[in-house]
């Protein structure tokens, strides 16, 4: 029997992917001035789709097709990355708060069971 219902597992995958996305953005921003570096993008929807089908599915990460705006061929755009990062962080904390509230519900149920 699966101890935790489906939605907790889903939340867990969401949080894993969001953390992975944070790493991808960290890699892009670390290389913001590296000549010839191509920004990487995590396709969240596609990765989530795969993760729901199989727990072992790797995330879908592809090089960004954005044209380079500098002479050295680097196509990392700081504003885009920082925007993506804020978004990612907010969505991560949404998932973690949802998970916290789910876990609180379980412990309330377990307490009720205990008192009954």
């Amino acid at each position: 029997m699966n101890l935790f219902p489906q939605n907790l597992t889903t939340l867990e995958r969401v949080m894993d992917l969001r953390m992975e996305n944070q790493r991808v953005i960290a890699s892009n921003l670390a290389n913001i001035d590296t000549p010839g570096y191509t920004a990487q993008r995590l396709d969240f929807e596609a990765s989530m789709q795969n993760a729901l089908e199989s727990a072992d599915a790797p995330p879908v990460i592809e090089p960004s097709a954005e044209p380079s705006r500098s002479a050295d061929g680097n196509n990392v755009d700081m504003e885009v990355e920082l925007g993506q990062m804020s978004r990612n962080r907010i969505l991560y904390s949404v998932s973690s708060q949802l998970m916290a509230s789910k876990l609180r519900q379980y412990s309330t149920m377990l307490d009720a069971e205990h008192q009954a």
Partner: protein
Amino acid sequence: MNDFVALDLASAGMHAQRQRMAVIAENLANQNTIGPNGPYQRKEVVFRATPLNSFDDSLQAALDKAAGVGNDNLKTVGVAEVRCDNSPPERRYEPNNPLADAQGNVAYPNISIFREMTDMVEASRSYEANLAVAKATQDMQTSALSLAQR
């Protein structure tokens, strides 16, 4: 999964930008440095993206790959080289200078204060971007840790 990868990447980024800032400071400090062996040569750093490849990282990457998380797309950053800018020196007419040549010219470093200042602002902005990554990662990890509290 190694949860400190994002922080490592951010600190590698900050480290690289700080090295760049040190070279800019060196250039600015030496903008009027001349000597019998020629003027100071402007320097610039060249960054290079390298895969995360310390032993721990490789092991973790292999484990993550087996577990279906993690990927090879993450690249850390380092200074590949500090390159000398070989553009010709600026010649100033200073006949009384002991270092002047037969025409009375002295070779000064080819440093443009404007270019260095622009580079400095860029380095500082990139440093801040990496700092923002570190802060955001910390926030995310704190919110995950708060799950353990009741």
